[in-house]
């Protein structure tokens, strides 16, 4: 009898150990830029991503399997991004977290051929929101088109609900990403009847004295919509302030609205009133961030200093959270953790009602809409921090849907 029990125990142990072998890590391919031209984003965004994954793993992972995010820094270079993608594929990544517009463009065709889902929050083309045309690209966050629509909606609300006869200046970085919102803005000019003038800032975007004087003293718009990158958002804040244009009439797209931009512009006192569009919640007041702090405390470590830069850090958390949600959808659908990239793709298309305590917008991703609705939230620089000034909203959905159907 005793030997029988032993045998049983042995068999059980064997079964357990084989299960443990079968239960291998779920690998995510994470592309980052911590050293290239957009390093100011990467050094906060990527730690946020890893911290959320660590949090999930500390709670036992997904379906019992740990998640391993393999980060590769591609320095915003296309050949490195190609190499890192192939490396991720070799490691068995079930999804790729893309970083950067040229990199997203360069890998789109290969992702589609290999049937691996790639996410491009805030990058790539707005047309990628169309899941019919780009089945394996998931923007998962408001595209520049949705941001443009959101900005105009916001301006309309600020100016009393009617834009007829109003003047809006569009101050943009003169590159493809900067010009991308133009079709949407032009369509809205027709629909809402406002007057728009565009002001291009040439690369590298640190010289815009002429444009700003033109805006403040000649055009005198009722609102400025700014779409700048890198160092230029801080320059725009500084210059607009200098010529006396009220910053409470400026709303920036997502890459011009971080803590780092405000600090580079000369601090919160200078930028008081400046509005910024966000696709992830801003500030430290979300349950998930408290859990991360708690996790660090249990390990006897202080919370990482990157957490203070909440705009980019929270975006990293948002991206990781949506990835984990897609993976857990895939695990649930399959019943085990041996999921394929295709399962994860289907997992993305089931994301709904996942808000992470308000940090993530109420996305609804399906096989047609890979953007999840184009939700944005607007924050204002006020008293030393970003203060929420609207709830999550999506603007002009029918117009955007019509434009997406035309293929962009």
């Amino acid at each position, binding site marked *: 009898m005793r030997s029988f029990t032993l045998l049983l125990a042995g068999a059980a142990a064997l079964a357990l150990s084989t299960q443990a072998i079968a239960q291998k890590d779920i690998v995510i391919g994470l592309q*980052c830029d*911590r*050293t290239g*031209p957009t390093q100011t984003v990467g*050094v906060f965004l*990527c*730690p946020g991503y*890893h911290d959320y994954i660590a949090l999930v793993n500390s709670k036992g992972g997904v379906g019992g399997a740990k998640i391993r995010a393999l*980060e*590769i*820094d591609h*320095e915003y*270079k*296309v*050949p*490195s991004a*190609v*190499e890192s993608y*192939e*490396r991720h*594929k*070799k490691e068995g990544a079930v999804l790729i977290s893309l970083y950067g*517009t*040229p990199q997203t*463009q*360069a*890998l*789109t*065709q*290969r992702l589609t*051929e290999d049937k691996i889902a790639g996410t491009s929050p805030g990058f790539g*083309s707005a*047309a990628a929101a169309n899941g019919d045309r780009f089945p394996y690209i998931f923007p998962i966050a408001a595209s520049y088109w949705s941001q443009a629509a959101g900005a105009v909606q916001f301006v309309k609300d600020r100016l009393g609900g009617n834009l007829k006869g109003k003047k809006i200046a569009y101050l943009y970085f*003169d*590159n*493809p990403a900067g*010009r*991308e919102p*133009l*079709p949407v803005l032009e369509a809205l000019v027709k629909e809402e009847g406002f007057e728009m003038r565009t002001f291009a800032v040439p690369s590298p975007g640190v010289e815009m004295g002429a444009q700003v004087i033109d805006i403040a003293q000649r055009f005198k718009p009722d609102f400025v919509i700014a779409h700048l990158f890198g160092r230029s958002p801080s320059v725009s804040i500084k210059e607009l302030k200098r010529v006396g244009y009220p910053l409470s009439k400026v709303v920036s797209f997502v890459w011009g609205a971080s803590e780092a931009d405000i600090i580079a512009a000369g601090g919160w006192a200078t930028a008081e009133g400046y509005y910024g569009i966000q696709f992830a919640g801003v500030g430290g007041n979300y349950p998930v961030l408290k859990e991360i702090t708690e996790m660090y405390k249990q390990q006897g470590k202080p919370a*990482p200093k990157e957490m203070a830069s909440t705009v980019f850090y929270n975006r990293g958390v948002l991206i990781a959270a949506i990835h984990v949600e897609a993976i857990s959808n895939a695990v649930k659908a399959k019943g085990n953790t041996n999921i394929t990239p295709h399962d994860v793709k289907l997992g993305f298309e089931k994301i709904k009602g996942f808000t992470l305590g308000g940090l993530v917008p109420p996305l609804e991703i399906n096989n047609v809409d890979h953007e999840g609705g184009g939700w944005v939230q607007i924050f204002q620089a006020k008293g030393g921090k970003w203060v929420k000034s609207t709830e999550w909203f999506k603007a002009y959905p029918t117009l955007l849907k019509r434009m997406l159907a035309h293929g*962009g």
Partner: protein
Amino acid sequence: MFHRESGYYKTSYAADMALYPLPVARWTVAAIALAMCVAPFVLHEYYVSIINLILVATVGALGLNILVGYTGQISIGHAAFMSVGAYTAANLAVRLDLPFWITLPAGGLMAAAIGAIVGIPSLRIKGLYLAIATLAGQLIIEWTINHVPWISGGAQASIEVPRPTLFGTQLKTQFQLYWFLLFFAVLAIVGTLNLVRSRIGRAFIAIRDQDIAAEIIGINIFRYKLLAFAISSFYAGVTGVLYTYYLGIANYEQFQIVTSIDYLAMIIIGGLGSVLGSIFGAIFVTLLPIAIRLGMENWGSLLFGDADIRNLIPNLRLILFGGLIMLFLVLEPEGLNRLWRNIRSYFRVWPFSY
């Protein structure tokens, strides 16, 4: 050490003019060729993809070396010529549905034409001044592509291109594209090897060493300087086309000035004025980040925590990359190629000193 270089008598002009007159050199080349043919069958797709990137970079580095290394004209607009090639090929492939064997030379020729125009200032200015003039070329080309939708194909300035088709098969996988890229890389290498020992190549070298002297001995400076720019840009254009087919998209954002600097780094590290050096440079610049990353992933945890490693890998790469360039310029200004030749000549007479 293992072979004798004496005792081979050439009995025909053809034998005397062979690229590799010594049997041992021919055997080495044959062995490398064989290895390149076997490699994609035995290597994982990931390693094939790295070789693919090296192959494309080799073509670009060769082109830049013809201009900078052989002719002595500096250019920091190399990446812009790649974008000229890329967009020419992309437009031809998408609008007129032309196959790659037309779009590829067309992209090269268009880049050569633009390159010759950008090279005109080289007739009057040299050195740093020429660098600025080519920088202007880079910026003008970038701006033009960015602002002319007829070229760039719309606001996104990127054109999706169907992958190349050969005998009815579309070359999609890294394995298939390997052969496609290898063919053109070999063509570029053999072409350059022959170019630099031809009349044109000798003229380039003469101009590099002393352009006034070259003019006095009857070299038409005007013609050969522009020719150097045209040939170099042709290579760059072809590189752009190869990138376009390899990635399936033409996008000017990958051909910005940083890329030009990368290619300059390749030929400086590899060795100015040598074909082998261009190849060494392309290999080195592509592999170094990968090697540093692998090393850190495997052994970094002995010294640092996880979060630190993630921050350290990219920064360490930059530090090492910059440090190595400085080290080479101080220790061996002629680059990896010179290092290789030193090693080779040492072992040639080993165990004797000469």
